[in-house]
């Protein structure tokens, strides 16, 4: 230690790197599995000092004159109120009671075990579509030949399907490059436990081209030495962390427009009875990628808005990498959005959801919020959370003189700074 100082310079961060080396590119490894990482909505971070997420900066702007309220009044023969908003929404070939789905639960520690099962059960009971994330099978197994069922894919699938009401919900199963080696989709497609979902049109496969928490990189988790030894032949392992912990990276996969197009076609060819979802990271060519995906026949295109996750990311990524979700939505709207656009990224309350829907999304994904709600009460935390979100959605949408999420449009939001959004009303 010297007495050298550098006021105004990130001196402590530099000193941390000088002490810890490559490990300092990441949050402290002790936080893995108990802290859900991602962008905050406040000042600083990716939007610069004092900056705000442009989606948060928007305001929801009800008009005075409401022809759609008149139409609902005529329809009902009485004044409509917020309880008359019909939230049921078709999502990627499924039907959801809310314009909401539950985002990927991967092989990460935070989403594993009892919490993952509790979340799957509650999402199933609510009839909310659920995405099961990548790497679950290579890391935790499928659950058919004696692996611990609580972590394995089959356990989550059963927990969800066991509670699912008739005609609602559905499961989308992701497959990463490493999952492709384990043939996760083929496994699920030919499994008797998945047959009821398949036969009722409630099974989708989600092709993942990237993720919001670290656009351009693959999934990352932190492993202890024993787990690392078990997975070493399948994943990239990097000994950059301290304390006997190892960084496990999936490869993000290589995509060009033609590779994406053909992979989607192959999914439709090989799994004709499953829906096809495609997940994009908030890349600068997100509109072009969404166009290719929809053109090749994807039933849903998801944009994961560079906000966070249950896994692990170098600090530089949440702070500095990826388009803000609002900018993704602007580019998608300008290019003509895919027929079913789903977005995720720090969704938890009605306002951010309504703004996303107004800017062209069909539904929003709950990631960290769903996990926290299930962690708060494994029996009914997500159920109560969804009740609250539904009430907020109904109130906000009816305040705009509208009675279905699909009726929202860009005139419903306003910002003085956000280019491309006109003052409406």
């Amino acid at each position, binding site marked *: 230690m010297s007495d050298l100082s550098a006021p105004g310079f990130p001196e402590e961060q530099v000193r941390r790197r000088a002490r810890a080396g490559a490990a300092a590119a990441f949050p402290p490894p002790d936080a893995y599995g108990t802290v859900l990482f991602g962008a905050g909505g406040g000042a600083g971070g990716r939007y610069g000092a004092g900056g705000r997420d442009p989606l948060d900066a928007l305001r929801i702007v009800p008009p005075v004159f409401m022809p759609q309220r008149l139409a609902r009044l005529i329809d009902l023969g009485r004044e409509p109120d917020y309880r008359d908003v019909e939230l049921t929404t078709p999502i990627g070939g499924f039907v959801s009671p809310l314009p909401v789905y539950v985002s990927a639960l991967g092989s990460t520690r935070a989403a594993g075990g009892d919490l993952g099962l509790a979340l799957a059960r509650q999402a199933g009971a609510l009839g909310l579509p659920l995405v099961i994330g990548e790497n679950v099978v290579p890391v935790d197994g499928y659950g058919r030949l004696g692996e611990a069922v609580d972590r394995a894919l089959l356990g989550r699938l059963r927990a969800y399907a066991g509670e699912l009401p008739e005609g609602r919900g559905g499961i989308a199963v992701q497959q990463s490059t490493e999952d*492709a080696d384990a043939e996760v989709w083929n496994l699920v497609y030919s499994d008797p436990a998945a047959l009821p979902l398949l036969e009722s049109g409630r099974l989708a496969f989600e092709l993942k081209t990237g993720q919001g928490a670290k656009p351009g990189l693959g999934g990352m988790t932190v492993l202890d030495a024993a787990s690392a030894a078990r997975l070493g032949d399948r994943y990239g392992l990097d000994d950059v962390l301290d304390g006997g912990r190892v960084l496990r990276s999936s490869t993000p996969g290589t995509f060009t427009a033609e590779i994406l197009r053909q992979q989607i076609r192959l999914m*439709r060819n090989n799994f004709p009875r499953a829906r096809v979802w495609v997940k994009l990271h908030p890349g600068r060519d997100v509109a072009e990628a969404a166009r290719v995906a929809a053109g090749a026949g994807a039933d849903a295109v998801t944009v994961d808005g560079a906000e966070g996750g249950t896994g692990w990311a170098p600090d530089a990524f949440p702070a500095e990498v990826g388009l803000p979700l609002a900018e993704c939505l602007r580019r998608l709207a300008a290019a003509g959005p895919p027929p079913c656009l789903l977005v995720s990224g720090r969704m938890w309350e009605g306002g951010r959801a309504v703004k996303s829907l107004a800017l062209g999304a069909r539904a929003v994904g709950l990631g960290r919020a769903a996990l926290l709600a299930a962690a708060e009460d494994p029996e009914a935390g997500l159920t109560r959370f969804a009740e609250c979100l539904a009430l907020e959605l109904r109130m906000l949408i009816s305040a705009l003189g509208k009675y279905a999420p699909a009726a929202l449009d860009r005139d419903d939001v306003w910002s003085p700074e956000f280019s491309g959004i006109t003052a409406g009303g």
Partner: protein
Amino acid sequence: MTTDRLTPPAADGAAPSAPIPDPGRHLTAPATRSALRIQQQLLFSAREFLRGEGFTELLPPVIGPVTDPGSRGSKQVDIDFYGHRYKLMTSAILYKQASLLAFDRIFCVAPNVRLEPLETAGTNRHLAEFHQLDVEVAGASRDDAVALAERLVVHMVDSAVRTMPKDFAELGRDTDAFAELLKGSFGRMRHAEAVAELRDAGHPQSPDAELDWTGEALLSARRDRPFFVTDYPKGSRGFYDLEDPARPGFLKNFDLLAAEGYGELCSGSQRTNDYAEIVTRMRETGENPQKYRWYLDLVREGVPGSAGFGIGVERLTRYVTGLDAVWQASAFPKVAGVVSP
């Protein structure tokens, strides 16, 4: 977990399948014996024909670190090979190409295992374990392979019809059904034409996908001799089928479909042997090139360009014998989800 039932469900549009009897009853049934004798004659005559054409028969491997990924919706079987994950072969394709380093013209009768989706239990056309008569020719084009497959099938059927009249009689199969086949000159249509014909007939066939099972059966039922469907779109087949340089997006490949509604008998193509092309196509088919290391290393050093095909032995037997379901053409049938010896 398996489905513990002996009666396969019927797929949409298919006639309900007969239940699979216990092995004793199946093996002693006169129809089974006749079908297996005809199958033997088909294979005997194929060997006769191919050896006469200068082919070398190889014994294909049953296990390996990687196998053919290009099987619609089915799951591969993993095995533990001294701590390494190996696969049972779903097809011999990778080894067929590699074998051309030893011989220019090869064939094999290859066992394949594919854990097909449960819905195939009712198609009458799928087995989880079956055999392919695999043929590969160095330096050949797709059209060479089509011509060879036609001559081979004509020879096999002709031989069976001439030498096995009692067995055809036992099965009640009228061999006049092959009058047109034995003249050769199988029909030929592009995939796009097949799609158009199916759509005209009210069947919603996707233009980007393989012909679905109902579609294949529909086209097949309208024909009096086998016919080739060529030029499948990329995205419907494995990475090894050559993309047509003159028609990007379409592959220099083919299927041979039987007449009378029996559907697909054979798939084949001209192969791509260009390393960068194969790696790119692997990505387009969602595959991880890393696991194909031995194959890619060989390709990088150079394997000959080739064309070839695989004829489903049990499917051809079913067609020739006129049986209701393909499992009847196997001594020990394995149907998706059905527990059997």
